């Protein structure tokens, strides 16, 4: 380990070198990182408050809402449906060999359908939305930022948050439940098809067990969680686009980070809401207690 800094390091202040300095540097870097994270969370929170604030003012015009709804809802349906079918079939493939070993293959329906409506359906729909729509929103808004179109909007007395963010936010918030239900339905259909038609599980028992174990609260909890996922995707993606660095690289980075941050936040929200909803279920129906 060198005992002193080389003399040709420009105008950097000369510092003592050693284990204590290394620890100080490490703490300082950690502090910078923490401050950066707190600032970023604060920025997104302010952005979210401003967006929600505009919801209580004048709502966006029909001609700005409908294209957003079409992009977010209608164009996402095929990809959500397709991935839903396949995830249902994959669950059947993976679960069958395990359940067959203990002669419980007729319970496959309960496991597949429960997993789908409570977790996989909403998370899958949200992931597809973050990948397909979130990245596109970040790239579009990022390009608008780089080419000064957002400044142009503001200069003409149109609030960019009201004009650009609110329609996207409403689109994600209102249409993700529909996408989740579609993912649930297609996943259930795919799992049932593969289990009963390919793997030969008895159809009557498959559905009977599904009915016994999957309740309305399970479907509600999945759809309820999806609302938070949709709001998070819209806010994070629009925020990334609005704060895009200049140039093509900045736009690319905004699109990538929109998906990565959205996905991480979806999983965090999923965990927190999963715990809360299970607790609620326990409070409402103590006899049907679940593990938290």
């Amino acid at each position, binding site marked *: 380990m060198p005992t002193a800094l080389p003399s040709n390091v420009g105008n950097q202040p000369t510092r003592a070198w050693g284990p204590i300095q290394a620890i100080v540097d490490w703490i300082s870097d950690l502090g910078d990182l923490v401050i950066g994270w707190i600032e970023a969370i604060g920025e997104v929170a302010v952005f979210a408050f401003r967006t929600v604030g505009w919801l209580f003012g004048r709502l966006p015009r029909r001609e700005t809402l409908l294209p957003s709804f079409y992009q977010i809802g209608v164009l996402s349906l095929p990809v959500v449906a397709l991935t839903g079918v396949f995830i249902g079939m994959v669950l059947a493939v993976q679960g069958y060999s395990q359940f067959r070993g203990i002669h419980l293959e007729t319970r496959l329906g309960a496991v597949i359908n429960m997993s789908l409506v409570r977790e996989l359906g909403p998370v899958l729909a949200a992931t597809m939305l973050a990948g397909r729509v979130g990245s596109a929103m970040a790239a579009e808004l990022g390009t608008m930022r780089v080419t000064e*179109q957002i400044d142009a909007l503001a200069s*003409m*007395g149109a609030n960019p948050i009201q004009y650009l963010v609110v329609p996207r936010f409403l689109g994600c918030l209102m249409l993700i439940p529909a996408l989740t239900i579609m993912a649930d339905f297609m996943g259930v259909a795919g799992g049932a098809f593969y289990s009963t038609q390919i793997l030969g599980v008895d159809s009557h028992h498959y559905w009977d067990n599904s009915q016994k174990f999957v309740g309305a609260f399970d479907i509600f909890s999945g759809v309820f969680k999806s609302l938070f996922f949709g709001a998070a995707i819209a806010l994070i993606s629009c925020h990334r686009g609005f704060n895009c660095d200049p140039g093509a690289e900045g736009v690319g980075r905004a699109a990538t980070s929109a998906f990565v941050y959205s996905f991480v936040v979806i999983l965090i929200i999923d965990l927190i809401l999963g715990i809360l909803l299970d607790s609620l279920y326990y409070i409402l129906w103590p006899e049907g207690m679940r593990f938290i």
Partner: protein
Amino acid sequence: MPSRALARVGMLRSGEMQACLLDAGVVKAWHTAKLILSQPLSSRPATPSAHNPESRIMARQQEIPKDKPKDSQRSLVEARGLHVNFGRQHVLRAIDLTIPRGQTLALIGESGCGKTVLLKSIIGLVRPAQGEVHFDGSNLVKLGDRALTRERIRFGFLFQQAALFDSMTVAQNVAFPLRQHTRKSDDEIRQIVMARLAEVGLPETVVAKKPAELSGGMRKRVGLARALALNPEILLYDEPTTGLDPIMSDVINELIIRTRERYPVTSVVVTHDMHTARKVADRVVMLFPLSRLSHEESQIIFDGTPRQLDQFGDARVTQFVQGEARERLMEMRELAELQG
């Protein structure tokens, strides 16, 4: 002053303002002998009402608050002690600038000296770290989102690359501010769009085109038509001739002059094209990059008429005006030697 050839039907006089209704059905208004309004009587704005937001906008644009100081009535824009930083980088320091109504001001200076940042501070697109920007008496820095949005209706901004919305056609771009802030019918909007496009010399054939299908000069002219759509009180031009051929540059210069002659508009033109500055401006202000100034020096190193530019003693100004790179080349050589 009112022409004697036309008979006056009625006349109003208040201080330096003079308004007159001529028998040809035309209303004309003068401010200190300068014609600031000339329009047919039928085109007067409607009486403001709760059901007519458009008339409210126009009425608000025209009223002069009684409680404002006299100073703010003379100057439309006033920046006081303006500091702008981007992270740790200081871009503007202690800028004091007053722009009177009706003036055309050219902001000149090297690339990166903060001209565009100053222009964007004037409209509130860039929030200063310190200082105030007063527009017609109200401090834009202290306004909230909604109030600032309302004030911006009084501005027109021509961006460097025109910043047209690429998802919209030319007609939709020009119509955008009208659809946002007025309740005009589609027919009325179409007429205004066509009139604005005609004013900037664009044919009807461009209305259905997307910005990507236009040349740089055409995009700038569409941007100008869009900036004019709401009859702004102040027009901000960010490097209007950059990237254009000499002929198209002169077309844009002529349009700036023609716009000023047609409307009672105050203009701020950011440019490093000296031909543009000399041709369109009543007043020139030169900024200098902070990185090359000492702490005591003012960032505004010239403030005068275009004629005074040539007689000014400061070498930094004359070198910029004449396009001499000698001193910069010497600085670059010294820097290279230091680093090498």
